């Protein structure tokens, strides 16, 4: 597998799996406006997943489609961040995860818009606009619920504590990332950390949330070593394609 293919899978799988998690909310959100907004988020993420996985399939050149990559790979072939496969738990966890990811994705897409690979730059430019909207929205919600009632504050803090060990993976470069950064295809992941921290610190300050001190970071998603949750997600997501192979939908 080439570094480019791997790198694209990471973007594609991360947006794919997060869109799936967000779509689980459909019809069950705390308010009608949130139902609409969550569906919107999931839709934009599916859109990104389609573009990244589509390009990954093209780069691979093995005749696979974005759908093949999404529905017919085995769990150990998925390359998404562990963060996005974690369960929804409650609305607070869902929004906190979204905020942590959106801030990263916004920065990432801005850098990718100037990628040396024109196809990547084109996708990133297209995705960046929607991403900017989501980035603002999830931050606003984290602030409002962090600085809301005592209960909403406690729930947001516990969500932050739970997800914090999954943040580091987004910024930890491995040989694939290093190769892509060397060629100017991807940014240097570590370089995203400072602006991410700056913005996140602002958000948490407004939200009266305490950023955990631990620097420990789970790794594994990018190399296919997932949590037990992803396997369960795939039994649902891939069900029809697996149970009825060869059918057209």
């Amino acid at each position, binding site marked *: 597998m080439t570094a480019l293919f791997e790198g694209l899978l990471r973007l594609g799988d991360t947006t*794919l799996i997060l869109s*799936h998690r967000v*779509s*689980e909310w*459909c*019809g*069950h*959100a*705390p*308010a*009608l*406006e*949130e*139902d*609409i907004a969550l*569906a*919107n988020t*999931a*839709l934009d993420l*599916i*859109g990104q*997943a*389609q573009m990244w*996985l589509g390009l990954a399939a093209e780069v691979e050149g093995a005749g696979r489609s*974005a*759908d093949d990559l*999404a*529905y017919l790979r085995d769990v150990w072939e998925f390359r998404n961040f562990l963060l996005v496969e974690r369960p929804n738990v*409650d*609305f*607070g966890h869902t929004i906190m995860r979204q905020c942590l990811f959106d801030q990263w994705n916004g920065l990432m897409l801005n850098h990718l818009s100037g990628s040396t690979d024109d196809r990547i730059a084109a996708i990133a430019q297209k995705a960046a606009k929607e991403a900017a909207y989501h980035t603002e929205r999830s931050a606003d919600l984290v*602030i*409002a*619920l962090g*600085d*809301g*009632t005592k*209960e*909403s*504050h406690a*729930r947001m803090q516990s969500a932050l504590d739970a997800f914090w060990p999954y943040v580091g993976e987004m910024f930890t470069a491995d040989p694939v990332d290093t190769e892509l950064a060397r060629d100017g295809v991807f940014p240097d992941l570590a370089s995203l950390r400072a602006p991410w921290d700056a913005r996140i610190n602002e958000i948490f300050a407004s939200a009266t949330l305490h950023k955990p001190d631990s620097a420990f970071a789970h790794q594994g998603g990018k190399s296919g070593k997932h949590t037990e949750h992803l396997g369960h997600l795939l039994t*649902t*997501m891939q*069900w*029809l*394609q697996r149970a*009825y192979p*060869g*059918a*057209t*939908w």
Partner: protein
Amino acid sequence: SPQERAFQERIDRGEKIEPKDWMPDGYRKTLIRQIGQHAHSEIVGQLPEGNWITRAPTLERKAILLAKVQDEAGHGLYLYCAAETLGVSRDELTMALLEGRMKYSSIFNYPTLTWADMGAVGWLVDGAAIMNQVPLQRTSYGPYARAMVRICKEESFHQRQGFDIMMKMAKGTEAQRKMAQNALDRFWFPALMMFGPSDKDSVHSAQSMAWRIKMNTNDELRQKFVDQTMPQIDYLGLTCPDPDIAWNADKGGYDFSEPDWSEFFDVLRGNGPCNADRMQARRKAWEDGAWVRDGLMAHAAKKSAQMAAE
């Protein structure tokens, strides 16, 4: 009363009634019930299709389905707003739903058991809904009529998407064809029930027609639906589960069997396959979401207190 007469004359002239206009209590109440139920139907209607979003078979199908369910939430929002112009808040209506004092369309008490049901719901359920709703674009209450205009535009789009799924299934593998036929078998009669029992004897219906809140009789619409749908069933190569359905050249329409109205009233009483599950899902969403709504309100209050102080 002279007021009532004048009101009726405005309606007969085809004028729109607007929120600030005088209106009879019965008109207001009937509208609140009808618009509220319609809004609830959009909300509860998210659930049967939401049941398949996480199992949608392709990225595109998933996006289409999500967008559709999102539209339903949007329709709910338009309709709650229309109801609010009559002096009832969204929260009041929601509580009435959750406490079982208000209904939603019984069709959503049927389960979605295979992917073909996503086709059948779009094709038959949205199809029947549109047939009910298109005339309501000309209903006498302005905000309601305007909401229906927006809704109808989107619904017909949904119906085409549903038919497209049905096509793929009906022309697909053996298993897919089975799912398609099975979905049609399960949804045919419940779809016919969506127009309600024959309104020959209903006093309510007559009054609603006079007020132009109801534009056609249930039987007219049901006939129209059957006449429109039968050729589509043939086109799909499926079989209508009504063995007695037959073209009647004299009346220029199909003769067909009545649905089992005892089932209809059973479902209405709460004994449909999914009544309990649907209400539980909505109640859980409402209760689990309380801290979020409270949190957002508390924050908004803090913000406006801050702004006032500055």
